[in-house]
């Protein structure tokens, strides 16, 4: 029960407040289910040399905490509300989709893989961090933090993304903000595409989770592999493809990514959001056709890169849409010069509309 206490103050009569403790009504109801669940199932405390599994349905959007553990391997194959990892050493931790933030503090030499809305560290060193992160990951007073794009899949993972409100198309895994950056050096680095997560996180082997078909393959990953900041300052030609809201937009996007890869065209970044009409008219140079398309729902935007990639991208998209997705509306850059400006606008509008 939340107890509210009030001091009444008559500041014009006297500067000494007159205390009037009053019992006010109960404001936040204690959840029925909070009593029924066992807290220790959600808090791993002071455990050493163990491997711990949480299967789908066992956490169901609740908070999960790992603290004071050493040399443990933890797999949470469920969606969660908020994660705290504190004072851990030599641990390997996988956490399913996190609706809110994952905060790791005072920990060293750990491997962490997760999908989350926010990622934060403080006072950590020597971490491998594999993430899908909807916002810019931040680090503070942390050193030697290696970030990688998490590619992952298991049965039910896709539904768990939805339960946690995490979109596989919004991933800024490599765009790190360091609150305590140091001159002429960096507290973090980015891992290459070949440093996939199971190089560092052990593959789960317990029979209890064998039915989940856990894998880290790029081809089947819920979050598509993106090069992100690894490609930010490279000069390869860019091409923006926007798929407007449609029941098959996600499937089409995944297929497009796969065939582009075969043509040596890489996926730099993706973004999904509801473009408002004002942004649409500026992004698509006032072409009214697109203004009505954006009102249908969120779009999926794909940034591709490769030597002279605009023309082959146009051909691939055209062929794919004509053969399988005739009712799906799309936009694609006309030229390399256009695409750079369009991409800037597309990302700027995204951060304005999503985060302000």
């Amino acid at each position: 029960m939340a107890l509210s206490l009030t001091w009444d103050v008559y500041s014009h009569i006297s500067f000494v407040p007159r205390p009037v403790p009053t019992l006010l009504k109960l404001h936040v109801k204690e959840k029925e289910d909070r009593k029924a669940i066992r807290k220790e199932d959600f808090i791993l405390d002071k455990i050493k040399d163990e491997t711990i599994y949480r299967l789908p349905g066992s956490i169901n959007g609740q908070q999960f905490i790992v603290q004071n553990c050493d040399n443990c391997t933890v797999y949470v194959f469920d969606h969660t509300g908020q994660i705290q990892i504190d004072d851990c050493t030599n641990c390997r931790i996988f956490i399913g989709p996190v609706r809110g933030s994952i905060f790791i503090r005072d920990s060293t030499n750990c491997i962490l893989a997760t999908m989350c809305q926010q990622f934060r560290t403080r006072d950590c060193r020597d971490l491998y961090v594999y993430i899908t992160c909807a916002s810019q990951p931040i680090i503070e007073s942390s050193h030697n933090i290696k970030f990688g794009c998490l590619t992952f899949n298991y049965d039910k993972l896709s539904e768990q993304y939805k339960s946690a409100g995490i979109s596989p198309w919004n991933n800024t895994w490599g765009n790190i903000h360091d609150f305590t950056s140091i001159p002429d050096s960096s507290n973090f680095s980015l891992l290459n595409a070949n440093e996939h997560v199971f190089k560092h996180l052990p593959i789960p082997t317990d029979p209890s989770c064998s039915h989940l078909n856990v894998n880290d393959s790029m081809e089947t990953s819920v979050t598509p592999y993106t090069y992100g900041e690894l490609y930010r300052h490279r000069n390869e030609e860019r091409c923006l493809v926007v798929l407007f809201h449609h029941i098959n937009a996600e499937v089409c996007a995944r297929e497009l990514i796969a065939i582009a890869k075969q043509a040596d065209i890489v996926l730099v970044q993706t973004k999904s959001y509801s473009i408002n009409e004002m942004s649409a008219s500026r992004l698509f140079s006032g072409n009214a056709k697109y203004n009505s398309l954006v009102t249908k729902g969120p779009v999926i935007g794909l940034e591709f890169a490769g030597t002279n990639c605009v023309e082959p991208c146009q051909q691939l998209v055209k062929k794919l849409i004509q053969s399988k997705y005739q009712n799906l509306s799309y936009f694609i850059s006309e030229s390399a010069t256009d695409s750079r400006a369009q991409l800037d606008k597309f990302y700027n509008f995204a951060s304005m509309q999503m985060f302000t």
Partner: protein
Amino acid sequence: MGLLDIIRNLRPAKQNELRILLLGLDNAGKTTLLKVLASEDISHITPTQGFNIKSVQSTGFKLNVWDIGGQRKIRPYWRNYFENTDVLIYVIDSSDRKRFDETNQELSELLEEEKLHGVPLLVFANKQDLLNAAKASDITDGLSLHQIRDRPWQIQGCSAYTKEGVKEGLEWISKTVAKNKK
């Protein structure tokens, strides 16, 4: 009707602007709360690197709510926002027990600040929906709030995520501000 209307409606007519400062440790939920106050969608929120401000305009009234980033590194900048504060809202992640001492320390320092002298204090014991959350009454004891004698204060359990308790906190603000301006 947005939640901020509660305050707006009760504000004395001669005073047409209310400055509300939202402070608290990083990850306390300040930005989520800010968006809830402004009746905005809370599905996309990023860690605050500087500050966010939301102004809600109404007939003759303007409410300015300042939400300042809470990382240890940037807390020294909080003082840049103290001037002319009408109400201080201090937000706590009630489930982050590891940092109760740290948040206690930061709040104590704020209450010593000359520029915030006498400014009404609302403590939001946020994230009451999480299973490790401490009750508002326990946080009251932990923060020794009962010892505050130089300003009106209130602690309110809430969840910015479910919106429970937020309205009650704002009602306290409107009541307190009205009384102070008498």
